[in-house]
Every structure is written in C-alpha cells, then in structure tokens.
C-alpha cells in the first residue's frame, strides 16, 4: 500500500467522532492561493503531522483549523468546547513582563505548583523554574511551551514546529513526551514540522502539504510516494528511522546528563 488516495484513510473525514475537520478548504490571500481543496480530519487520540516545504501553507492551515482565519471556501468544524493545548511557532517574551518559568507554564490552566514542577521535569527543565522566561534559550523555550500546552490537559495538542532549535537528543526526548500525551492522556496531536526524520516515527499519520494535500497516510507509505519524493528530493534518501542508542543524554543547555535519571 504505497499511498492512500486523499480522504480514504482509516479515519474517514466524515466520521462523526472526529474532533477537528476541514472539508475542501481553500484560502486565497490577495492574488495568492495559499490552500486549495484541503480535506483533513483528526480523530480523538490520533496523532497527525503536517509536513511540507517552507511556504507550503502548513502554519496557515493550522490557523484556519483553529478558527483564526476564515477559509475562502470550504468548511472547518471543531467539536464545540474542544480543549486545545497550543504551542506557537514563535514566542519571544518581552523583558518588561516579569514572569518566571513556573508562572508561565500555568498560563491557560489552573495547574497546581506541584503539577507545574512535574510538567517542567518531564520536559527536562525542572531546574529552571525560577528563571525569567525572557532569559530562556530557544530550546528551553520550546520545552516550556510544550509543558504549558500539556498542563491544559488538552483533548488536542496543536504544535507548530515543536522541536525547532532543540538538539537531536532533545528532539527525541520531546517527541517521546508528545507520544506519551497521546498514549497516557489520550490527547490527539496535530503537529506541523518540516523535519522529516523523527516526526515520522512519532506519528500515526503524515499529511504532506504543498498548498494542496500531496499525499497522506502512515509514515512508511508516504515515504514511498513520488510527489513526496519530488518535494523533498534528496532529503528522503537520508530518511532513516532513528534507532541507535545513546549512553548519555543532553540537558536543555547541551550538557551531558545520565540517561533516564533526570538532571542533578
């Protein structure tokens, strides 16, 4: 089964139980066609990743799905009262706002102090809880944003480039945490990524977007798709499931830390 035609997946876009659905969505901004005829559905507890080259409309599709931008045509349906945990593509804290990390992760939820500490520990930045957020590095901020979104106990995690700026070992760690949100909390996941390697491992279904849906399906089936290969070219050749093992891990600052034992 090399790749599935659009809209004939295990989870039918018409399935009543999908929590988020786009039907034949098109978006034209000015003279530019950003999205054309996009069908997409996310079922409860399902993990979906949007991949595609820069400027393919991935972030714009998220904005349409989340109701920030009205589509030019087509219909977007979200289950009413859907609890979303969102991690934006960029968040640059302004130093004028005094806010430390443990306060930041509580934004959007009523999580207790101990839940916040635990959430920070789980993404590897538990020792930074008193650090002002404007002093965090890019990778630390990514981890903080994921922890914050998870604390909302979301029905769907919506993550725009959730590991951008994080080193490779950290990426593995964060994708594992995202997978646990799915398996342990039953949260659906909708991710945008232009990294092809790790994300393919961490997801049920990949949707390759280049203004329209080029192909979609299980990670392995998408990888063999001709249009997908044409888009990503040589990158596909380098695709390898990340299977080798490390005898150590790296903390948020890149320092060597022992595996699985957390940080001192």
């Amino acid at each position, binding site marked *: 089964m090399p790749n599935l035609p659009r809209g004939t997946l295990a989870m039918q876009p018409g399935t009543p139980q999908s929590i988020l659905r786009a039907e034949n969505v098109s978006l034209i901004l000015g003279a530019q066609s950003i999205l054309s005829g996009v069908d997409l559905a996310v079922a409860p507890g399902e993990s979906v990743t949007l991949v595609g080259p820069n400027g393919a409309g991935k972030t714009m599709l998220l*904005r349409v799905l989340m109701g*920030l931008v009205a589509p030019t045509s087509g219909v977007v349906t979200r289950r009413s009262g859907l609890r979303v945990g969102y991690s*934006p593509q960029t*968040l640059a804290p*302004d130093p004028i*706002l*005094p806010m430390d990390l443990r306060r930041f992760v509580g934004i*959007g939820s009523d999580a207790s102090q101990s839940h916040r500490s635990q959430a920070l520990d789980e993404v590897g930045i538990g020792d930074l809880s008193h650090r002002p957020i404007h*002093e965090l590095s890019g990778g630390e901020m990514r981890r903080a944003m994921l922890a914050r979104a998870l604390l909302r106990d979301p029905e769907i995690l919506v993550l725009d480039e959730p590991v951008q700026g994080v080193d490779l070992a950290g990426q593995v760690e964060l994708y594992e945490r995202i997978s646990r949100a799915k398996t342990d909390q039953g949260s659906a996941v909708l991710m945008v990524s232009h990294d092809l390697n790790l994300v393919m491992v961490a997801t049920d279904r990949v949707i390759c977007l280049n203004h329209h849906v080029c192909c979609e399906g299980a990670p392995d089936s998408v990888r063999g798709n001709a249009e997908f290969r044409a888009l990503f070219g040589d990158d596909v050749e380098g695709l390898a499931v990340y299977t080798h093992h490390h005898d150590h891990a790296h903390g948020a600052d890149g320092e060597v830390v022992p595996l699985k034992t957390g940080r001192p």
Partner: protein
Amino acid sequence: MTEGLIGGLVVALVAAPMGCFILWRRMVFFGAAVSHSALLGVALGLALGINVTAGVVLTAAVVAVMLVILRRDKRLADDTILGVVAHGGLALGLIAMAFLEGPDIHLEAPDIHLEAVLFGDIASISRADLVWIIAGGGAGLVVLAAIWKSLLAMTVHEEMAMIEGAPVAVIRIVFMLTLAVVVGVALKVVGALLIVSLLIIPAAAARRLTTGPEAMAAIAAVIGVVAVLGGLQAHVAWDVPAGPAVVVVAVVLFGITFGAGRRSAPGPN
C-alpha cells in the same frame, strides 16, 4: 483637600494595574493618545451641558475604539496613526476649550480652566467629583481583576490565548473602555497631559523590584500611592502645582529603583 487626597489615592490604585498592562502590551503611546483626548472630552461635556467626567470617558472610549479600527490599516505604521490622533486630538481640544473659555462666554462650570484640564487641579476635587472617582476607580479595579487571567494570556501570546478559547475581541474592547474610565477619573488629579505618566511611571518603577506580574501591579500601586502623598505634601509645603509634583515624585522613585536594579543586575541564578 481631603477629597483631593482620597481621590488621588484611588486613582493611584487603579492606575497601577492598568499601567502595567500598558507597559506589557507596548501601549504607552496609545495611552498618551487616549489621555490627550480628555481635553476634547472636557470641552464636549461643557458644550453639551453634561457631566464633564462623563464627557471625558465618552470621548476617550470613542478615541480608543477609533484607534483600534485605524490600526488595522497596515499602510501606516502604528506610531504614525497614534501621532496623528494624539496631537490632532490635543489641538482640536485646545481650540474647543478656547471657544468655551473666552471671557465673553459664561460657563456653567466656572472653575474649569485650561491649565487645570491640562495639568490637573487636585484642590478643586469636590465631594461630587470624589463619588465619581471612587465609583469609576472601583469599577476599573473590579473589571481588571475579572479579565486579568485572560488579558495576561493575551499579553504573553495573543494567538495562543485565542486558540485556547479566550474571548480576545471582547477583552480587548473591555480593556479599552476601562482605560477610558481611568482617564476620566484621573483627569482632575494629574490633568490630560500627565495622565499617562501616572499610568506608566509607577509601573515602570515597580518592574525592577519584581519577578511576577501580580507583584509588579501591587508594587506599582504602592509607588503610586507614595507619589500622590509626596506630590500633595510638596504642593502644600512649597505651593508647587500638585499634578506635576505627583509625577516628579514618581519619576524620582523610578530613578531610585532603576539605580537599585542596576546594582543587583538581573541574571541567571
């Protein structure tokens, strides 16, 4: 004068959290534009024969909403639009006041002078004014407390707050209207030109001393109260104008905290 003192303290209390949000949301120039429109509001209130504070709140609210709409036009930078509206409104207000203040015109409120409107006249705060100040200031505090969590989430990342279900458009309008009310109640204390100082200087002074948003608002309130007490003391002792004296004390406090903050420079610890 007791009325003036109480009025000043109430205004300092409500200006603190409002001022924090104006700093956090990078709205200082916006606050100035809305404050300057108070002059036009006074003229409007007098011309229509309605309560002057009501005229100010109404005008400030209209200007704030108008600014929000104008700023959607991306052909002009934000500060361009704000500059046009702030100074255009001020000039229009000055002309309107000149008409109303002319010696031939008998005003129903003869205690209102241009200088008092521009720089405040805390001594002239009457018992009736005080009722307005307490009602408006109290309502402002209650509203800010009610929208605090959502407004803070919007300040961190507006799109994030919207996606996660905060009623962003409603809160933005409520915040603008609250700002208009604060401008209305602060007018008699510091005047149209200095309202924005009372909003932002105590908040800016508090920034160096705090690590959390709520603490910053609380410390800003304390600094604002000290500035009002100090300014009125200077007014009584040396007969300096009260409104500017309040602002100068606030600036001195800002200087002190800024210096103290530099010595214990923030850094990873």
